[in-house]
């Protein structure tokens, strides 16, 4: 599904990713762990298409298509979704309208007519129920005045609405209390399917107790220095990142 080969990325002349290789297959959950400042969020942003980074070398192929040549919105329509670490507030635009716009733009990309309003509303209701979102989020402006937990729940709600094939969760657990974390994790688990995949970026092992990964990668200084099963996350938790640092 996703194939990243020798990806080297820099920003303002400073190299951040120094040759990343990663293969994600349908149905898998990958976790990317690592200390702060090692390039985890950069990797997420580059896959989604943030243009402030310079891709020096390497390739990202998604379902046979070269992602690096695609604008951000086309990547989204191809099935990439990024759950932001810091979701942006958009005053004046309700979540309903925001999502309706996004859903219909993606449908347009695939040559489909806009989703009829009643069908769209029914889908919103269904996803809200599924994710246990009770608040009248839909009529509020996107992320405006939301608590940290509400913002992250809103990201997962968007994920549910857009049904991507690859969802990247960038530090979705940061700033969440345990209850919000459970809501978010349960949502993700309900959205797992044999034909989609998740890339879960996190600093802590805590989230991985709720979203159990198939493969764990440790990112350190712009490289994946170690990959393994879910037990690698436990090992990291016990030994700390110093362990990796001493090995790297």
């Amino acid at each position, binding site marked *: 599904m996703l194939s990243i080969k020798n990806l080297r990325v820099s920003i303002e002349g400073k190299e951040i990713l120094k040759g990343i290789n990663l293969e994600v297959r349908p149905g898998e959950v990958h976790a990317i762990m690592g200390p702060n400042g090692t390039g985890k969020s950069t990797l997420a942003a580059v896959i989604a298409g943030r243009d402030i980074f310079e891709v020096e070398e390497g390739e990202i192929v998604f379902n046979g298509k070269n992602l690096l040549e695609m604008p951000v919105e086309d990547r*989204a329509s191809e099935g990439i979704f990024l759950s*932001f670490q810091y979701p*942006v507030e*958009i005053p004046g635009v309700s979540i309903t309208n*925001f999502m309706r*716009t996004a859903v219909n733009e993606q449908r347009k990309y695939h040559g489909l007519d806009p989703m009829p309003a009643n069908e769209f*509303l029914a889908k919103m209701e269904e996803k809200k129920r599924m994710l246990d979102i009770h608040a009248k989020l839909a009529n509020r402006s996107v992320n405006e005045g939301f608590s940290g937990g509400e913002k992250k729940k809103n990201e997962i709600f968007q994920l549910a609405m857009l049904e991507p094939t690859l969802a990247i969760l960038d530090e979705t657990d940061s700033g969440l209390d345990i209850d919000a974390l459970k809501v978010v994790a349960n949502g993700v688990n309900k959205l797992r399917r044999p034909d989609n995949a998740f890339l879960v970026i996190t600093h802590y092992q805590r989230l991985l107790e709720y979203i159990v990964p198939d493969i764990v990668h440790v990112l350190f200084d712009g490289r994946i220095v170690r990959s393994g099963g879910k037990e690698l996350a436990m090992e990291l938790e016990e030994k700390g990142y110093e362990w990796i640092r001493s090995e790297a």
Partner: protein
Amino acid sequence: MDGTNTNYNTREALLKLFDERIATYALSDSPEVITGRREAIAEFARAGFPHTKLEKWRNTDLGRVLNNGFTFPLAPLAADVDLEEIFRCEVPGFDTYMVAQLNGWFIERGNKLAQASQGVVVCSMEEAFEKHADLIAVHYGKYTRVNNNSLSALNTALARDGVFIYVPDNVEVNEIVQIVNLVQSAYPVFVQPRNLVILGKNSSLRLVHCDDSVDDQVGFINSVSEVVLSENARLDHYKLQNKNDRSALINNVFFHLEAGANLSTNAISLNGGLIRNEVYVRLNGRGSHADILGVYLMDRDQHIDNQVFVDHAVPDCTSNELFKGILDDQASGVFNGHILVRKDAQRTNAYQNNKNILISDKAVIDSKPFLEIYADDVKCSHGATVGQLDSEAMFYLRSRGINADNARMLLMYAFAAEIVNKISIPKLKLRIDDLVKKRLRGELSICDQCVLHCNSREQKVSFEIDMSKI
């Protein structure tokens, strides 16, 4: 350009017009009004039209628009116009009591205000001079600044007509009063409406003031309004400006607030060749409050200039200014916010902010806050920002599949929404919301009617991104 050469003809023509008209005016006007006219024309003769060597006009050049052979209508020029047609009001759900002005002249349409029996008056200034001489004697010309404002002086000297509104003490006007000021002419016209709005103690009024063009003829509108809020009066005031690209609209509004009065004024500038709004707010009684808001969406060669002067004359008053604008192409803008806190105006709370987004690198904004504070127990703050659309927010929207053009538009809409959301008349808010969307999408042309019932009303707002409420 120093302006003296290009506007020489218009200036001379106006001075000549005054000499021709003053004898006729003297037949009907009170001696006091005539004295005011003479003093005002002397000021205009001395100062002439504003030009770019004046600090307050440095970035707003009237030279080009003044360089036209204007006619100065002495009547509405309505012979070949179907008045009922152009002033037809049919916005679903937005019922207003509409007052029509054509080329600066009040059009009697025979409609009756429901609360006329309670003493509420809406009529032409001409009629008010005859029938309400007592109110005219107390208020007319008392709030207008003629010195250092040669356009107000010119209006004071020559204006014959406009709208007069009087709300007696303790009356809350239920109907929304809507002034529609249209310009329509086969020739370039120079029109000078003059309005006076008087709110009695504990009264309230909602007033919507629309300035529209009917065609693309050159028009110069030099409008002056005086608005008095007596003790504890409340006014909710909107200016909607949707003029053609060849017109100049100069709007001087003088608000005077007595104790406990509450003003909200909101200038929504959607289109226009050159628009200058000068708002003067005098907080003259304790506990009075003013919200002065504005949003402007300008592109091509359009120019918008908002001048706000808030005079905190007495203690314990509050004022809040927020102007937001989006400028595209070669559009230019000016914001000049002057807050004066006089020596005795202790415990003043004044806030001012001007935020701008420049879409193209040729668009310019000149934003200047100016605080002049003589009291010592005062809370004053100001801010001005100029920026591009937030790239992080753009990325966020695009990462959901929304293409760059639509993402940009959504963000512009969101930016303007802060002001639009402050409109407290729900139907009006929806209407303006719609117009802002159309404007951002480049669909808003000059309607042949007021912006509130523009003829594209039946069309579904063809936002590819449908942001209508569902």
